Each structure stands twice: as C-alpha cells, then as structure tokens.
C-alpha cells in the first residue's frame, strides 16, 4: 500500500514538473510582449528568439503564433506573465497601464511603448534598440523607413490630393485625426484626411460632417459592407460613394496602418495604390 502511495506521489510530482513551461528558468533576455506593435518591432530587429510570452493579438510575423500566450490585449493573466520569469515586459499605454503598474509593483521591469506620431514610432524603435542592445539594427531600420517615407513624399508632392475619410467604427461613427499616426500616414501617402483637426487622435464624428466633407475616398474598417454604406440616408451626395471609391480590409490590411510598427511603410504604399486608382479612375 505504502509503495503504491509513493509511486502515485512520484507520478503526480513528475506530471506537475512536466506541465511547467520548459523555459521557466530565469534568463537575461526573456521578453514578454503585450502589444502587437512591439512584437513586430522586436521581430524586425531579429529578436524574436528572446520573446517568451505574447498576447493573442500579436499575430505578426506568423512565426510568433507558436510562442506561449499570456492572455489577450486587455485581459492579461498576471500569473502567466510571472511564471515566464521575464527580464522585461513590453506594454503599451491606456488599457495596459493597469497591468504595467501591477507588474512594476512586483519588481518586474516594464517598458511602455506608445507612439502617437510617425516621429514617435522612429523614437520608440530606437529606444527599443537601446533597451535590447540592438542600437545599430534599430538605427538601420529607422533610417530605411525614413528614406522610404522621403521617397514616397517626393513622388507624390505634385499629384492631386484626394480627400480621404477613414471610418474605424460605425454606431457611433469614428475616424482619425492628423494628431494620430494613422492620420499622418493618410497625408504622407499623398491624401488629405478630411478629419485632420479632430480634438482627439481617434474620435467620434457626426454623420453630417462626413456628408459635408464630401470625401473622394472612403476607407472602411468599421466592418460595414458596401450595400449598407451605399444605402445610408443622405450619403449619396458623397463623391466616394458616387464613384465607387470605397475600400475595405481586402484592399488594405488595417494592421498595416493601425499598428505603429515597421509595416507602416507597406501601409503607406497600399494607400498610395488606392489614391493612384482614384486619380486614374475619376475625371
């Protein structure tokens, strides 16, 4: 009987040990990343192997999907983060301020990354480079991004600017201002954001002001569909609807312009394509 009990306890102990994450030993460079944009930045600096935990929203590059998940963007499991014994936890602001404070109180090093403008994105990439000891790679990455933006701005400087309305939410309608990096990207690509002067980066807008602004192009990330948009009362006077210049997620991946990471260059180029389509299709 006693032998059986010892055997069972041993099996139980081994099972518990086997269930523990294999990489739970403390190490120097073990990053838990709660923000998808930081995950993209770290990956582009070649630091993917240092990431030991992520939130479910960190989906790019696809190789990150294999890494252990510690919850969702706004619902992080604190114990899971601690179990991974991270050397640094990368968070973003607003919704993640609370978890960042909790982790700091527990003595974990937290680095919050929240770029609000395109320039901030460069500064944050360089800061992440310094934090991770990848200064040179970060400098190289930002220099290449700046160069791309410069070239894009030069080739679009003499072109006609379409008025662009980006809808990020329906009921209530929400759009972006130029204070946000998303609004900046619209402008850098050669367009004119119709809500450039909203009070907040991302803000509720009145349908009347959308109609009055008469945008040439509408980019819809609000999960609405074409028949619904075309049948919105009073919207038929909008050039974007009259000329079928409404673009959805299949024309431009929202992550390319809504994640403040290295892929914004791809986002700007996708916007450029849309603008070019407008220039060649409308009289």
């Amino acid at each position: 009987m006693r032998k059986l009990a010892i055997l069972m306890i041993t099996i139980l102990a081994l099972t518990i040990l086997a269930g523990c994450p294999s990489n739970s030993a403390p190490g120097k460079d073990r990053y838990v990343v709660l923000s998808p944009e930081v995950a993209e930045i770290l990956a582009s600096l070649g630091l993917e192997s240092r990431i030991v935990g992520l939130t479910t929203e960190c989906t790019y590059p696809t190789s990150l999907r294999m890494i252990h998940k510690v919850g969702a963007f706004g619902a992080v499991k604190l114990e899971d983060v601690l179990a991974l014994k991270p050397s640094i936890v990368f968070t973003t602001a607003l919704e993640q301020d609370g978890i960042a404070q909790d982790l700091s109180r527990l003595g974990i090093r937290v680095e919050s990354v929240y770029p609000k403008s395109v320039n901030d994105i460069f500064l944050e990439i360089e800061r992440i480079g310094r934090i991770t000891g990848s200064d040179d790679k970060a400098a190289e990455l930002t220099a290449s991004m700046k160069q791309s933006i410069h070239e894009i701005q030069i080739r679009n400087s003499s072109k006609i600017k379409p008025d662009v309305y980006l809808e990020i939410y329906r009921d209530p309608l929400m759009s972006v201002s130029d204070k946000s990096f998303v609004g900046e990207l619209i402008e850098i690509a050669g367009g004119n954001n119709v809500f450039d002067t909203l009070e907040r980066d991302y803000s509720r807008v009145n349908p009347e002001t959308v109609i009055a602004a008469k945008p040439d192009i509408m980019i819809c990330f609000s999960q609405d569909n074409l028949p619904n948009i075309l049948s919105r009362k009073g919207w038929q006077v909008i050039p974007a609807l009259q000329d079928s210049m409404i673009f959805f997620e299949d024309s431009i991946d929202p992550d390319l312009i809504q994640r403040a990471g290295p892929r914004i260059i791809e986002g700007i180029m996708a916007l450029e394509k849309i603008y070019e389509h407008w220039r060649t299709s409308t009289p």
Partner: protein
Amino acid sequence: MKTMQKALPLFGILISLGICVLYLIWDKPDMNILWQVRFPRLLLTVITGMSLAGIGSVYQLMLANPLAEPYILGISSGAAFGSILLASLGLLVLMPLGGFIGAILTMLLVWRLAQKHGIFDRSRLIIAGVIVGMFFSSGISLLMYLNREDTVLILSTLMGNLGRIFSHSEWVLFQGLSILALAILAWLFLKSRALDIMSSSDHYASSVGIDVHRTRIQIFVLSSILIGIVVSYAGIIGFVGLITPHIIRLLIPGTQKKVFLSSLVFGASFLVLADFVAKSITVIELPVGVVTSAIGCPFFIWLLLKK
C-alpha cells in the same frame, strides 16, 4: 395664478416646437443633411423622449413606486443585451432586431417570474425585473470584456446613441415602428383614468368594472414593446423616464391624463434639447445619457427646493 396654470401647457408646446426648429436649422445645414440626416435623428429623439417619459409616468402609478422608470423591469437590459450580442457577432445592421427580440424574451421571463400561483404580484414584478435586469447587465459586461474592440459600441448603447445612421430600408421600418409607438402611447393615454382608479386599490377598481389583471398585462406587454423599440434604436438613456413625470407633477399637478400628456411633450423636448447640447457643446459629441443627467438633475433639485 390660475390663468398662468392654464397657459402653461400651451407655453410648453410652443417652447418644444421652438427647440425642434432650432435643432433642425442650427448651423444652416443643406437640404440633403436637413431631410436625410437631421430630421430622422429628430424623429428618433422625439419618439424616444416621449416613450421614456410616458412609460415612466405610467409605471410610477401602476407600480405605486416613485422610483419606477422604464428600465426598472429589466426590459431595457434585455433589449440592450440582444442588440449588443448581434453587434459582437458582426451583425451591426441587425442590432434593432436583436434589441427587439431581447425585449420580448425578457418581458416573457419577467412576467412569468412576477406571477405567484397565477396571480400577479406588484412587488414580485419589480424584484423579478431588477434581477433579470442585473442578469442581462452582467451579460453585457461579459460581452464588453470579451470583445474589447466593441467597447465603443457597447458604451454608446449603454449611454444612449441618437446618432444612428439609417439606411433607406431601416428608415422605412423605423417610420412604421414610430407609428406603432405613437399608437401604443395613445392607448396608454386612454388608460389614464383606469390607472388613476387602480392606484386607489385593486378592489375599488374591480368594483367599478375595471379588469385590473388584464389592464396590467396589457400595459406591461405594450410598454415592453415600446421600450424594445426605443432601446433598439437609441440605447439606454437615463433620467428622462424617471424624473420627467416628477417634474410634471411638481409643475402641473393633476390627473394621470394631464401628467401623461405633459410628460410626453416635456420628455420629447427635453431629450431634443439634451441631444442638441450633446452634439454642439464640445467638438466631440457627448453621450446623450450623460447630458440628460447633467442638465436634468440640477433643474430637478432647483424645482424640488422651490416647490
């Protein structure tokens, strides 16, 4: 003084009309915006304000509870849950349908719980309504927690959203529902005398030939349908249904007929004014539910102290 009391309703109607005209022509919109966007919003606001205030006055009398309001019986939470659930499934356009189904199912559930051995019990109705309302509120909180990307939509439903974008087909449907809402309000108005009598006692009401049980069922079912319509399109807007009837009773004391009609006019114009402020006071549009309380509470306190 008596002449003043008599002139008050007329004065109120004139002010209400003035508010509606101001709401429509403010900022000089072009004809397209005026008729296609602003007028539908005004109609939604007026129907919502009238319904909330009207039902509030009926519930306060029927449930003999000064704290009764259109949302006390949990119907609004059920409607909000239904519309938010469909929105989180990506079916944004079907939100009103979800709200309506939510309201009807909640109504059936609350009514079933309010019966004791087949007999209606007023206290059970309120308790059942509060409990069912809490259940659906927790459901809404769960949906908000699980669908962070829908937080704005959920908050706008919970804090009131009169800025709904109508498609042409939705507008036709809403016009039909508005006629239904007005018909229900007219029916509730016709029941005013019966409600006055029922407020004395059920026995007395029965002795003068009122079928108390049947009248209560009818009021409960029809008012639930009305709440379903309102919440489906405008979300949950606090204060109007609770305080409007009290303000009216302070200003124009009288029978339920008088209180009900005045509540309709005051509720509608008050909500139009609140929405006007919510749209115009800051660059960012404020949730109308916040404005109704911000304007209404100080006014009510002032009135309470004065009267």
